[in-house]
C-alpha cells in the first residue's frame, strides 16, 4: 500500500517547526509503524535529506521510549498499543496520516517527534518510591499480601511512562502517570509508611513541572497503552486530600541522642 505522511519537522527546540509531506510507497502490512518510518528514513538519507528523528528502543511496547500522535491520537489510538507495536495492517492504501510529537509545556521538543520527558523522572524522584536501604529487607513472605491488592498494584505498576496520557489530555495533566505510581505503592503494605508524604510530594512536583490539573475528561485512560484506569486518579486525589488534612510539620527534636 501507499501512504501519505505529514510529519512535524523541527530542527531543535529553538526552531519553530512545520509539517512536511512525504509519500511512502510499498508499505507492507506486516511492518510495524516504526519500521515503516525506518524505510522512509533510509530513502530520505539516500536523497541527502535529514531523516526524521523519533524516539524508540525496545520496540516491544515495554520501555516507553516511543510515542507520537497519529492523526491527533496518541500512539495512533489503538487499544493497548504503543506505536512500536502498531502494525500497518490497520491502515489502508492511500491513507493520509499526520504525525506530531507529544505536545505539552512540560515536554519540550528535542527534534521532530522526539520530546524531553525528564519531568516524569523528577516526579518519581520527589516521592515515587519506598525507602528501603539495600540489604535491610525482611523475608519476602514475612508480610502476606492479599492477592487482590497485589494484582491491583500490578495493574497500576504496568505504566511505562511513555507520556501518552499527558499528550492526549487537553490540559496536559500528568494525573494518570502520578496516580498510577501512587496506586501501585499505595496498594501494598510496604507502601503505607510513606503514603501521605508520597502523595503530597508527587502532586507538588507535578505542579512545579507545569503539568495542569485533571478535569476528569478521561482521554488519558482511552489512549493508555497499558490500560491504566482513571480510578488511579481518584486514589491520588483521595491520598492527597487526606494527607493535606493530617499533614503535620516534621518534629525537629527527634532522633538526636
Amino acid at each position, binding site marked *: 500500500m501507499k501512504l501519505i505522511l505529514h510529519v512535524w519537522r523541527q*530542527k*531543535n527546540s529553538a526552531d519553530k517547526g512545520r509539517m512536511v509531506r512525504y509519500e511512502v510507497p510499498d508499505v*507492507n502490512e*506486516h*511492518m510495524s509503524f516504526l*519500521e515503516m518510518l*525506518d*524505510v522512509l528514513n*533510509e530513502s530520505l*538519507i*539516500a536523497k*541527502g535529506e535529514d531523516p526524521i*528523528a523519533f524516539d*524508540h*528502543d*525496545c*520496540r*516491544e*511496547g*515495554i*520501555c*516507553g*521510549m516511543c510515542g507520537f500522535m497519529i492523526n491527533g491520537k496518541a500512539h495512533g489510538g489503538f487499544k493497548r498499543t504503543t506505536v512500536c*507495536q*502498531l*502494525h500497518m*495492517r490497520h491502515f489502508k492504501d492511500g491513507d493520509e496520516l499526520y504525525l506530531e510529537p507529544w505536545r505539552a509545556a512540560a515536554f519540550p521538543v*528535542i527534534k521532530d517527534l*522526539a520530546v*524531553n*520527558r*525528564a519531568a516524569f*523522572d523528577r516526579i*518519581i*524522584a*520527589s516521592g*515515587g*518510591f519506598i*525507602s*528501603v536501604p*539495600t*540489604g535491610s*529487607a*525482611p*523475608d*519476602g*513472605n514475612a508480610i*502476606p499480601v*492479599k*492477592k487482590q491488592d*497485589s494484582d491491583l*498494584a*500490578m495493574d497500576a*505498576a504496568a505504566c*511505562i*511512562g511513555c507520556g501518552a496520557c499527558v499528550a492526549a489530555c487537553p490540559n496536559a495533566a500528568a494525573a494518570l502517570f502520578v496516580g498510577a505510581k501512587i496506586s*501501585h505503592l499505595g496498594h*501494598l503494605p*510496604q*507502601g503505607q509508611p510513606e503514603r501521605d508524604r508520597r502523595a503530597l510530594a508527587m502532586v507538588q512536583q507535578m505542579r512545579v513541572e507545569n503539568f495542569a490539573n485533571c478535569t476528569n475528561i478521561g482521554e488519558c485512560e482511552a489512549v493508555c497503552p497499558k490500560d491504566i484506569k482513571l480510578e488511579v486518579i481518584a486514589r491520588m486525589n483521595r491520598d492527597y486530600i487526606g494527607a493535606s488534612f493530617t499533614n503535620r510539620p516534621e518534629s525537629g527534636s527527634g532522633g538526636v541522642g
Partner: protein
Amino acid sequence: MELISGAPIGPIETAWERHKFALKLVNPANKRKYNIIVVGSGLAGGAAAASLGELGYNVQCFCYQDSPRRAHSIAAQGGINAAKNYHNDGDSVFRLFYDTVKGGDFRAREANVYRLAQVSVNIIDQCVAQGVPFAREYGGNLDNRSFGGAQVSRTFYARGQTGQQLLLGAYQALERQIGLGSVKMYPRRDMLDLVVVDGQARGIVTRSLYDGKIEVHFADAVILATGGYGNVFYLSTNAKGCNVTAIWRAHKRGALFANPCYTQIHPTCIPVAGDYQSKLTLMSESLRNDGRIWVPKTVGDKRSPDQIPESERDYYLERRYPSFGNLVPRDIASRAAKRECDEGRGVGPGGLGVYLDFSDCIKRLGAAKIAERYGNLFEMYERITGEDPYRVPMRIYPATHYTMGGLWVDYNLMSTIPGLFVLGEANFSDHGANRLGASALMQGLADGYFIIPYTIGNYLANSKLPKLSADVPAAKEAFCNATNITNKLLNGKGTRTVDSFHRELGKIIWDYCGMARDKSGLEKALGLIPQLREQFWKELRILGANEEFNQSLEKAGRVADFLELGELMCIDALHRNESCGGHFREEYQTPEGEALRDDANYSYVAAWEYKGPGQSPALNKEPLAFDYVHPSQRSYK
C-alpha cells in the same frame, strides 16, 4: 597475562562470607570523598548506583536512553530465580548453584555461581520491600513457576513483565538517591572512551545525544553495566540502542574480553516476517510450561495445523528429552528447532518456524486461566502476527537474545584494568556457555545490590588515587580519540546508510557464527568482516553534524564497534575446538547431535587481549576447576 580470579579457597559454602570479612572498608565519613561512575542504568547499573549512593559515595550515572527507567532489563518477561524453596520441592542454594553450573555446560567459575545462588534469596526480599508486585497466591504468599533447565519451581514473576517491575524497583531506588543528591544522573549520553591514568580507570568520555557535546568525567572508580552485545546480529531481541561500545572501547584500553563466542539464541521468538524487519520479539520461556512444541512428521506438510491429526505431529522435545520435555535449556531447544527446520519440517512462510501449541492446556485449564498467566504475551503475539494464539498455535523460531561473554572480571567483579568494574550481562562471569532462563535478572541484581557495594570499597581503601587535574594527558588523549572517531564518521563521503552495513554484518554473524558454527564458515566470516569494515569507513554516509540530535551518528559509532567485535567473536569461536552450551561447532557433536565438550583441552575461560589495530588479539587463559559439580555430559533426557 596471568588471570587471577581471587576466588577464596576453602569450603565454597562460606567463601563469600569469609571474603566479605577480609575486604577492607571505607568509613562512612570518607565515602563522600569518593566519586564513582556507573555507566548503564538497568538492573545491574541502576541497583549499583542506588546502593552506592545510599552508602554515601558520590555517584554519577549515565545511560543512553532518555530515562534510566528504559534500560533493556525492562523487557525481560518470565521471571527471576531464587533458591527460596518456598514450595518445599527440594530446592536449595546448592541446587540452584548446581543447575546453573550444569546449565552453563561447565564453563563458569564455580565460586561466582555459588555466591550468585546464595544472594538470590536476598534479592527477592529486597524487591518485595521496594514494592515489586510479584504474583501472589490467595494466602498472600509469593507464587512461583518453573523454568527451563530446572526441575523445581523457583522462578518468581510479575505477570509477563518481571523485568519491568524489577527495573522499576531499582529505578525508584535510584531516583530516590537522585532526589537526595547522592547520585547525579546523565541521561542520553553515550560512553565513547575510558580514561586510564597510570594503569587505573579514572574516568570516561561521553557524548551528549542532545547536542553532541563531548565531555570528560573523572572518578575514583568506573563501573560498566552496559548490557550485552547481541545487536551484533542486527536482528535480536535486544532494544535497538543496545550496543557494545562502552565495553569494547574499554577492551581497547586494556580490559580483556572473555568468551565472546558464547551467545545465547533463545528458542521462542516470533519468526522473521520480511527484509524490513528491525528487531525480533521474544515470547517468554515461561510459555514452555504450558505450550507444547511440535512440527508435522512429514517433510513439506503444508496443511494448516488444525488439519494435522495428532498421529502426524512430532512433539520432538518431549520425544527426545522425556524427563525435561518442553523445558530443556535454551541452547538445546534452539538447536532442536533449527534441526527440524533444516530437515524441512519447519512451518510458516519460508519454513523457519515450529509450533508452540496451547490447545491442550486451554482444554485442561480453560482460556481464562491461560489468559491470567500469559495474557499480555498472547496479545503481543497477536498484535505482531495478526494471528490469535488462543485458536491457532504460535509459530516460533530461535533468535539472538543474550550474550554470556563479556569483559573478564575477577571475583570482585573487577576487570583487568584496576578500578574498572563490570556488572551484569556486560561481564562474562556466571553463566558459562549457556544461561538458564530467569537467571539474567538474578545476576544483574546480585551484582548491583549485593556484590559491588562490598568489593568496590575494598578497591578504594587499598588504592592510591591521586587527585587529577582536568588537563591530565590521558584524559586529553581519550577526549581527542572520541572526537576523532565522531569526525571520521561524519566525514565519510559515501552513499550507504549505517543500517545497511549493520544488516550485512548481522547476516554474516548469523550465518557463520550463529546457532551452529564450523571451521570453514568461521574462516569465511573472518575474510568477510574486515572487507565490510573497510567498506564501512569508505562508503558510509552520515548526514547532519555532531552538534545536534543525530540518531544516524549514534548508530554509526555503535556499528563501527560491532564490526570489530564480530571479528573477535569468530576468532574465539574458531579457536574453541569443542561444542559447549551456546557455542555449537558442527564438527564436535555426539552421535545424537548434542554438544560434545573437550574438557581436557578447553576447560578454561578464553580472555582476549587487544593488541592494536590490524593486530591479532592475544589469548589468555583462566583455567576452570570444578570441585563441587563434576563435569559430565549434560543430559536432559
